[in-house]
């Protein structure tokens, strides 16, 4: 092999696309050729660099959109499977109607909670009763709720990602006492309402009367974050809180 042939095969070599014999021939030439071994080092260095390029993972919004577009997989259309399909369709249909009904009531109650959440947020800001406990220390805020609620809300400080915790208070949502945690981003206040929830619900995002609302459940707790912050930053906050 001469240098010109090496040059032609070098990329296939570093990409592991050469056959064993070709690889070995190439290696033995490179071992004795300063120019080619320099070229190889350069290519390997470039590879290490390029593999550090940003990798863009799919945003959650896209994931949810694709999930929603996904259709149930089709049944195999063989004649023998027909009868079974019909039976299955009937029973699945029944389940689906019941499921749809349940989903609808869940959606309605979720909408009314979102309304309550925005109401609670506005009340707290207008009445200036934002805090019962004012502290940027999660170890002060969390114990404050002890004895005031029948659950202990998880309290996380997200100051390191630009959303400092500034306090907490008791509030009432959907007719029950809940923990309200208060965070700040520049001039914007974020209220996070937390209460126990045994039914896990899919994460949801909406905008209501000019406020952004984010909802998720985790470790048997319902979380509702609300703010006049822009959607992207509230998403960033919600993600930070869930980590």
């Amino acid at each position, binding site marked *: 092999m001469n240098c010109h042939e090496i040059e032609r095969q070098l990329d296939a070599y570093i990409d592991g696309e050469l056959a064993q014999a070709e690889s070995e021939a190439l290696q033995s030439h490179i071992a004795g050729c300063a120019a080619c071994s320099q070229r190889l080092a*350069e*290519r390997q260095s470039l590879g290490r660099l*390029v593999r550090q390029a*940003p990798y863009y993972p799919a*945003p959650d919004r896209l994931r949810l959109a694709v999930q929603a577009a996904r259709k149930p997989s089709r049944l195999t259309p063989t004649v023998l499977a027909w009868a079974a399909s019909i039976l299955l369709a009937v029973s699945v249909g029944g389940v689906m109607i019941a499921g749809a009904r349940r989903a609808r009531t869940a959606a309605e109650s979720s909408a009314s909670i979102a309304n309550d959440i925005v109401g609670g947020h506005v009340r707290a800001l207008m009445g200036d009763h934002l805090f019962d406990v004012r502290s940027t220390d999660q170890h002060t805020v969390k114990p404050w709720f002890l004895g005031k609620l029948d659950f202990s809300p998880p309290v996380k400080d997200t100051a390191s990602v630009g959303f400092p915790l500034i306090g907490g208070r008791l509030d009432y949502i959907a007719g029950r006492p809940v923990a309200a945690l208060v965070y700040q981003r520049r001039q914007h206040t974020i209220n996070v309402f937390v209460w126990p929830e045994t039914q896990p619900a899919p994460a949801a995002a909406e905008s209501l009367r000019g406020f952004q609302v984010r909802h998720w459940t985790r470790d048997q707790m319902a979380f509702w974050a609300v703010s006049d912050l822009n959607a992207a930053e509230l998403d960033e906050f919600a993600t930070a809180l869930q980590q």
Partner: protein
Amino acid sequence: MLPHLDAAFNYARWLTRNDADAEDVVQDACVRALRFFSSLRDDNGRAWLLSIVRNTWYSRFPKRKSEQAIELDDTADERPGTDLDPEARVIQLQAVERVRLALEQLPPDFREVVVLRELEGFSYKEIATIVDIPIGTVMSRLARARERLIPILRSSGQPIGEARELS
């Protein structure tokens, strides 16, 4: 298909060079992919989905093949290096940024083979399927893309193949 969504988006993001177009393209591609789900002929769902992403992009914006200027305002992802000391981290961030800009300067035909090979780890055969070119062309395109990247990176101040290079 969902397991390959990150790969689909990463590829689309490098093709389109912006988030909004990449999201649109991947969502469209997924809808198409779902429609043709039954024609999924082998087990390589990732390559198959990416080929749909590519077709979706080029069928929507056929003119994009001729390139526009690069944008410089994007913020770079900082994947590696949280456990480095601050100084090394800054240097590494700069390296990441230089690589991103260098890749974005490549013509799209070159850029995509580099992304598919280096970031997604596809074989030449798989890249040939996705891009719909012969394997020999994959090899020569990768070689030419790399030949171009080296001077672009060097002129941006990035050492390559020297002691100062960061791994």
